């Protein structure tokens, strides 16, 4: 990166423990609101930016993943620390700014001490000074600066107080630095790290006992002066070793042994349902928009392969990417609020025990929950799991979470199954499907865990040590920015792939029979087009493929036409419904589509035997197939990228798709055995 830029621009890296206000500072200095995510593993990513121009500093600012210490233990930590010493693209930082929570000096000073020992040029930034001031205390910058022999600046992230001072200090450092100089940095590596840790912490304790001093009364807002003074009385020996009182009170309920889990289930239940209920109208809107756009193109241009490439290929493909954006927005918004408030870490703690029973980790929970919206952001979210095996296992299991793309398929098949006068049955059935999907993914995870050593070939002891941050009111602007960036990341990552596969499938379903001959008598223009589409599909490459897999479809009571729809569903699962409509020559549009499709399905017969194709047994079988099958090529591509190889994605496709087939076979034939056709 540095190569592309001006080589002479100094490199400033922000380093700090998790929850130390590092990202807030990055946002303040960069002027652009980015939010960092801890990215352990082969996919360590950094946000970089030039320092905001009105600060008049010409330097490249890099935000690094939060680390506790400079001594790496896992492979993932090693990558993060190594890149700090000499990033392959960015080089060695000319200056390191390390953020330290001023209420937690006794823990957070470890990192700056290690950084200084390594020979880095360090500025310490004290954050959360407002929280400390409420306790009637402040940190003496002078004493700390002398004790550590480096510059110390206090800032208040909310009021931006102290930023000017920081800029001044950065400037005075940069004046002394020549970017071209070679830096004498020695990787922090002590022979006896344990003894060293104990000694370092002893030194820190000595410093901490000196640096806290009471805030002068005139500095305190008079309105709260009385309150502050009361605290002052009993905090004369403060060394940052007391917990936040409000947090303790809230945790008495939220981490209560009984109520805690109930609240957790409630919060997660609400999150889960809102992914669907709030997003649904927005998703319909996006869907409608692209359907209209499609119709617009078809109506206004000469019918030909190019028009269809634009309408069915590009527009529908883009639509199938964007239709999930509302869901992802809402998911990230809620998760962002929960994370920023401090609850998400507690959720991970509450669910750790049950998940560890099947070889997962408390930190697997959020990625798995995200999987119910879409597997792609879910797999990316798994990066926060430090243990490599658990991270790969989480990614492995995510496709079993019933993602929202399967919902239209379930909806259609449920509508087919239930009697018209009992619509409430559909809700129960859908609930049952999700329950079945959750239970079966637990069972599958349990079985796969037995073979985990062979599949993931990653060692490392399972660990769950997680700081539970103090509760605070979430910063809405930061959450919205994070939501925006995550959604953008989803579109940029998944978009090109989904679009690409949509185009390939469009090709397979469109060629070679470009101009089909159909009976046009007595039909409207729209109907003719639909009949033509159906005719085209019937003699397409996709149909040929479908006929090849006919032998596989017969044992589960289906024929090649469902096979074609299943193949099309590889672009995105919801395409299944529209391809089914095409294969069964449904000629009417929009609102009537589903009811007409239902009628066509009721009348459909297996060509060779003349038996009814869509029986209760085969419909339930199809639902079961969709619960297990991994038939989303975008997921496969993201899985390859996140796991750094083809092994896991290929295993996922083979295992989940054969499992789907097996379960469908058992379901269909089992139901038939009991006399249900």
């Amino acid at each position: 990166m540095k190569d592309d830029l001006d080589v002479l621009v100094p490199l400033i890296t922000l380093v700090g423990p998790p929850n130390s206000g590092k990202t807030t500072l990055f946002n303040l200095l960069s002027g652009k609101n980015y939010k960092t995510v801890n990215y352990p593993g082969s996919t360590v990513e950094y946000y970089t930016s030039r320092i905001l121009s009105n600060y008049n500093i010409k330097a490249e600012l890099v935000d690094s993943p939060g680390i506790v210490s400079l001594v790496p233990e896992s492979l993932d930590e090693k990558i993060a620390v190594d890149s700090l010493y000499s990033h392959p693209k960015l080089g060695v930082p000319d200056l390191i700014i390390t953020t330290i929570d001023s209420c937690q000096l006794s823990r957070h000073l470890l990192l700056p001490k290690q950084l200084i020992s390594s020979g880095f040029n360090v500025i310490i930034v004290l954050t959360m000074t407002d929280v400390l001031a409420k306790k009637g205390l402040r940190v003496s910058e002078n004493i700390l600066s002398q004790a550590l022999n480096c510059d110390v600046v206090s800032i208040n992230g909310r009021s931006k107080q102290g930023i000017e001072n920081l800029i001044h200090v950065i400037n005075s450092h940069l004046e002394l630095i020549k970017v071209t100089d070679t830096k004498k940095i020695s990787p922090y590596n002590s022979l006896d790290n344990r003894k060293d840790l104990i000694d370092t912490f002893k030194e820190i304790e000595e410093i901490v006992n000196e640096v806290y001093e009471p805030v002068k009364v005139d500095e305190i807002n008079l309105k709260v002066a009385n309150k502050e003074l009361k605290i002052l009385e009993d905090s004369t020996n403060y060394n940052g070793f007391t917990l936040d009182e409000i947090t303790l009170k809230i945790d008495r309920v939220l981490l209560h042994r009984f109520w805690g889990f109930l609240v957790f289930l409630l919060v997660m239940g609400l999150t889960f349902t809102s992914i669907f209920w709030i997003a649904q109208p927005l998703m319909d809107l996006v869907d409608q928009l692209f359907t209209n756009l499609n119709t617009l193109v078809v109506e206004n241009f000469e019918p030909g392969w190019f028009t269809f490439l634009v309408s069915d290929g590009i527009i529908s493909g883009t639509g199938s990417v964007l239709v999930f954006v509302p869901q992802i927005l809402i998911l990230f918004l809620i998760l962002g609020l929960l994370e920023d408030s401090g609850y998400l870490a507690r959720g991970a703690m509450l669910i750790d025990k049950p998940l560890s029973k099947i070889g997962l980790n408390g930190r697997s929970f959020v990625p798995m929950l995200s999987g119910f919206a879409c597997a792609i952001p879910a797999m990316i979210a798994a990066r926060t799991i430090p243990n490599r095996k658990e991270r790969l296992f989480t990614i492995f299991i995510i496709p079993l979470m019933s993602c929202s793309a399967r919902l239209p398929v379930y909806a259609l098949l449920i509508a087919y199954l239930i009697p018209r006068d009992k619509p409430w049955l559909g809700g129960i059935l859908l609930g049952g499907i999700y329950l079945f999907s959750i239970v079966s993914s637990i069972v599958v995870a349990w079985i796969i865990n037995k073979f985990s050593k062979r599949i993931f070939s990653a060692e490392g002891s399972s660990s769950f040590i997680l700081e539970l941050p103090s509760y605070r009111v979430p910063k809405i602007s930061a959450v919205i920015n994070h939501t925006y960036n995550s959604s953008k990341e989803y579109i940029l990552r998944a978009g090109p792939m989904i679009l690409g596969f949509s185009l390939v499938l469009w090709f397979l379903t469109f060629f070679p029979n470009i101009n089909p001959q159909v009976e046009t008598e007595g039909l409207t223009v729209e109907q003719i087009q639909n009949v033509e589409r159906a005719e085209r599909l019937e003699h397409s490459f996709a149909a040929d493929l479908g006929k090849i897999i006919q032998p596989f479809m017969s044992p589960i009571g289906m024929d090649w036409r469902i096979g074609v729809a299943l193949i099309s569903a590889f672009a995105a699962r919801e395409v299944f419904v529209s391809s089914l409509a095409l294969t069964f020559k449904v000629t009417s549009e929009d609102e009537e589509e589903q009811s007409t499709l239902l009628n066509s399905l009721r009348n459909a017969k297996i060509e060779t035997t003349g038996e009814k194709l869509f029986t209760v047994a085969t419909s339930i079988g199809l639902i079961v197939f969709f619960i297990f099958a991994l038939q989303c090529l975008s997921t496969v591509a993201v899985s390859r990228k996140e796991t750094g190889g083809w092994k896991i994605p290929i295993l996922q496709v083979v295992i989940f798709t054969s499992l789907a087939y097996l379960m469908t076979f058992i379901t269909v034939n089992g139901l038939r055995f009991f006399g249900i056709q």
Partner: protein
Amino acid sequence: MRTAAELNYREKGIISEIDSSHPSSKRIMEHGFTPGQTIELICKSTFNDPIAISIRGALIAIRKSEADCIKLK
């Protein structure tokens, strides 16, 4: 010798040593669990595991199997 995993609800203890044979021992120490520090068990998860321990003014959730290597005086 008792360990942090055996603390009762809201019970305090002083760390005597960290069992170095445990693979997580370094990570535990980096979070501030060092000999001489006072810790307190703040709460337990529904399934009794992990537990939340206060150390140096922070609340750390930790599995019992890992808290077991924090030996108390």
